Each structure stands twice: as structure tokens, then as C-alpha cells.
């Protein structure tokens, strides 16, 4: 399979994740959709790594996995803190930082 097929899959998955961030209101599902977008970026990075026969893209993908793990940890910590303070777990209701 040529690399362009993998890039097409990556583009479709990225757009699905972006649409999910826009359409869902549960912060847990929004975090899942962010994971989809990061995974799409990983697929593109590994595709380019294969295209050049060079391992650098795989290191980038590994760093993206680490950053995704950090983001999930902090995001889920926020969700747990929201739940403990009996705040609604709904991104449309949480407007206090809006100014």
C-alpha cells in the first residue's frame, strides 16, 4: 500500500475527532476525541517515518504518546475534581472562566 492511503486514513480519523470535540458535551468523551486526533497525528508521523526509512518520526510519535498520557491524567483529574464538588459534568454548564 502506498503511503497516501495511510495519510487518508489519518485525515479521516482526525476530522472525526475534531467533529466529536464539537458535538459532544461530556468532558470524558471530549478527552476520548482528543485521543483520536493525537492518534491520527501518530499515524501520519509513522507513515512519514516509513516513507523516508528514518526512525525520527517514530520518536516523535512516542513523544506524542507521552504527552497524550499527561493530558489524559490531568483531564481526568479535573473531571474527578468536578464530580467531587458536585458541579455538573458538562462543558456547556462550566462557564465561570469565560469572564
Amino acid at each position, binding site marked *: 500500500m502506498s503511503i497516501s492511503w495511510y495519510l*487518508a486514513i489519518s*485525515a479521516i480519523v482526525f476530522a472525526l475527532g475534531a467533529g466529536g470535540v464539537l458535538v459532544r458535551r461530556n468532558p*470524558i468523551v471530549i*478527552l476520548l476525541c482528543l485521543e483520536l486526533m493525537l492518534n491520527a497525528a501518530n499515524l501520519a508521523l509513522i507513515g512519514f517515518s516509513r516513507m523516508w526509512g528514518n526512525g525520527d518520526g517514530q520518536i516523535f510519535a512516542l513523544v506524542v504518546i507521552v504527552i497524550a498520557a499527561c493530558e489524559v491524567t490531568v483531564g481526568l483529574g479535573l473531571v474527578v475534581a468536578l464530580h467531587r*464538588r458536585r458541579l*455538573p459534568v458538562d462543558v456547556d454548564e462550566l462557564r465561570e472562566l469565560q469572564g
Partner: protein
Amino acid sequence: MSTFVFFVAAIGAITGAVGVIALKNPYYSVLSLVGHMISLAALFLLLRAEFLAASQVIIYAGAVIVLYVFVVSYVGDAAPALGQDPGRLAALGAFACGGALVVELFIAVLGSGLQAIGHDGAPYHAGFGTPGQIGTLLLTRFLAPFEIASYLLLIAAIGAVTLARRRGGLDDGIEGDAPVLELLDVLRPRPAATGTMAEAGGSRGMSEP
């Protein structure tokens, strides 16, 4: 054979992604993400990234998903608006945005002047994508990003514990006066009957704060 595996994995990845955003129950969304991750690991294997395929399955489909499942079952149905359906107009708008993004990405990536994306990639040489190659790169050329990533993980872990920990005094300001978090709150010892162990085992035998 590899074409067949590619199409099976690609259809699995896209179906999993659709399931994440379409299913109402967050549990099913998380399970759908597991299917997506495993299909993606198969795609990584087709691209000869063996080490990353393994770490994708272990880190994502293992550790991160366990974290999600625990938080979903902790939050549960307590939130009134969990997974509520948005308006029809919002869904249509998001669909239009996603479609525009697909078209734009296709034009940007596939319509670019990159000659090599129409080919199968560079000739495969033994050792590409193995743990040995990744480890050599991580400890020579990419030593600084490797160390910074470890610090980032440490900071994220401490931040998550600080965010989700129950502090004395913060629970009072839900409706009335706004609670203020100061540096001292992070440093001072927590009151009795709070903390992970007390909450897991219940606060029986201890005085309620």
C-alpha cells in the same frame, strides 16, 4: 495479503472512531476506542513500526483505557447531563466542520508536491522500527526530549493528584463564597478522614470532618 490486512484495519479504525463520537453511553465510547487503538496498532505493524505498535497496545489499550474506565465508573450517572444529545443544528454544524476539515486535509496532504507518498516508501532494511533502533535514537540523538518527557510525566502525575485530592475547606464553597486555593493548601497536611485510603475504605470509626 497486506492490502487485505490494511483494509480490515482501516475500516476497524474508522468504525471505532465513529463509535467514539456516536455512542451515547461513555462506557461504550471507551470500548469503541479500544477497538480503534488495536486497529491502529495493526496499521503501525504494516508500516514496520513494531515497537510503537506494541507500546500503543500496552500504553493506550491497556493503561490509559483502564484510567478512563475507572473515571467513567466513578462519575457514573451522577451527572445529570452526561452524554446528553446536542441540538440538531449543532450536530449539523459539527458535521459540516468535520467534512470541510477532511477536504482540506486531503487537499493539503495528497495534493502536495511530495513525490514519495505515491510509493510504498523507502526500501526496508533489517532493524527498522525495532526496540533496539528506537532505544539507540532515544539515548543518542533524542536524549534531551527523552529526559524532558520524563519530567513532564512526573509533573502531570503530581498535578493530577493535587487536582483530584480532597482538601479540607475547599468543599464548603460550592454555592456561597468562592473557595480560594492557595499555595499553602497544597503544602499543609490533609485533615483526618480524607485522602485516598480513607475514601476507599469509608470513614467508619473516624470522626467526620
